[in-house]
């Protein structure tokens, strides 16, 4: 197994700021917008963007939630192991809101498909956008594209994109791992 660095901590930081600015450009004061991180790994990205928007761009209030999609996935019983759930925490209504779904890596699009189904349990949003840090080009199984993307990469199917966060893994770094 070999791995190479795709993005360093500094590059990630620049990209996060750009993504925050793009969100700001489209949603201004986030009055009618909610950020939803897809569990388990999209949570860190969503929290990071939330922090940048509040601390550096002085957005007063942002509704931030985390969505677990385990029970909505289309590969239940298809893998070896039982799918393990994580916590959903959405303590606001998304009825008539602009929802920004946030995940670290966009690959086949199946997770996002499940997230869109899961969202329906929390109301009917006005519109839904997708933000991802890494977009793996040419590997989609479904017609799903991000509205905001950090970096586009071409990775073959044997490769895996590993996103590490300081708060969880000790440092901000993204690897391309050859399995």
């Amino acid at each position, binding site marked *: 197994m070999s791995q190479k660095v795709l993005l360093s901590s500094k590059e990630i930081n620049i990209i996060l700021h750009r993504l925050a600015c793009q969100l700001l450009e489209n949603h201004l004061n986030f009055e009618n917008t909610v950020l939803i991180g897809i569990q388990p790994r999209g949570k860190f990205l969503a929290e990071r963007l939330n922090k940048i928007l509040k601390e550096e761009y002085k957005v007063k209030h942002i509704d931030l939630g985390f969505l677990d999609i385990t029970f909505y996935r289309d590969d239940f019983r298809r893998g070896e192991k039982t799918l393990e759930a994580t916590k959903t925490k959405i303590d606001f209504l998304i009825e008539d809101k602009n929802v920004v779904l946030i995940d670290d890596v966009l690959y086949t699009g199946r997770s996002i498909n499940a997230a869109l189904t*899961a969202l329906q349990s929390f109301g009917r949003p006005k519109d839904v956008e997708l933000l991802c840090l890494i977009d793996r080009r040419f590997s989609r199984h479904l017609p799903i594209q991000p509205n905001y993307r950090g970096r586009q990469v071409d990775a073959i199917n044997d490769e895996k994109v590993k996103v590490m966060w300081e708060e969880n893994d000790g440092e901000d770094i993204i690897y391309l791992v050859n399995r």
Partner: protein
Amino acid sequence: MSELSVKHLLGIKYLKETDIQLIFETANHFKEVINRSIKKVPSLRDITIANIFFENSTRTKLSFELAEKRLSADVLNFSASQSSVKKGETLIDTVNNILSMKVDMVVMRHPNPGAGIFLSKHVNASIVNAGDGAHEHPTQALLDSYSIRERLGDVAGKNVVIVGDILHSRVALSNIFALKLQGANVKVCGPKTLLPKHIESLGVGVETNLRKALEWCDVANMLRIQNERLDISYFPTTREYTQQFGVNKKLLDSLDKEIVIMHPGPINRGVEITSDVADSKQSIILNQVENGVAIRMAVIYLLASKIK
């Protein structure tokens, strides 16, 4: 640990402690789901479950059915009273006939102990025991422990007394197994005639004085006197039973601590507990019912994930 060690839920006796923890963690997620405004997830949309009840049940059957529907499974309901069982069909034939209609899982209640175990050896489907005679009622014991954990933070180290007809109770046996597995201290309390001989061999204490039992415990699980199972007279009158083993507000108030009151239902108000106790804030009877749906969703979800 993300998988159950068993393919069927036949009894607590066959589970490991890690299985119970996995079921509880999964149930936490489902409890959040059933408190949303849209209480349904699509996980089991390609699974068909038959609920086969050879014995009467209201609460358990409703709870299982609701759990299955909340997981989007297709549900078949079957009561023995309206079926070919009356015409002389055997259990295996009945179930195999249902299975040939492509059913993946069977939830069964049966008056004979071991019926689920027997079935699991002869048919090709996941079996969930919803009560087999006086043997086990695993989902009830799981939801009881889950409710204790929710109220008191943990089950380990807690003192739990099970009061009433221990002899005929599947709830008592499953609860004893589940509580012991999680490290609780268990006593049983009731008239001597309704306590099985050698029950101490399961590692439980025996107490025939209700007051002493309540003074010792953190949780009292009050069982119903199952008149339908009492073939001979085990105590003189219901009134005498109530005087000795019924819990009332006055008795609870005279204890120097506030204990938790549980009941698996259906309650005979005024027999094993009085109305004011059943409806008091010490009682978690309705929490048990709510948790029952979450626990059954967890059990079905985890077992279904093993169906390939």
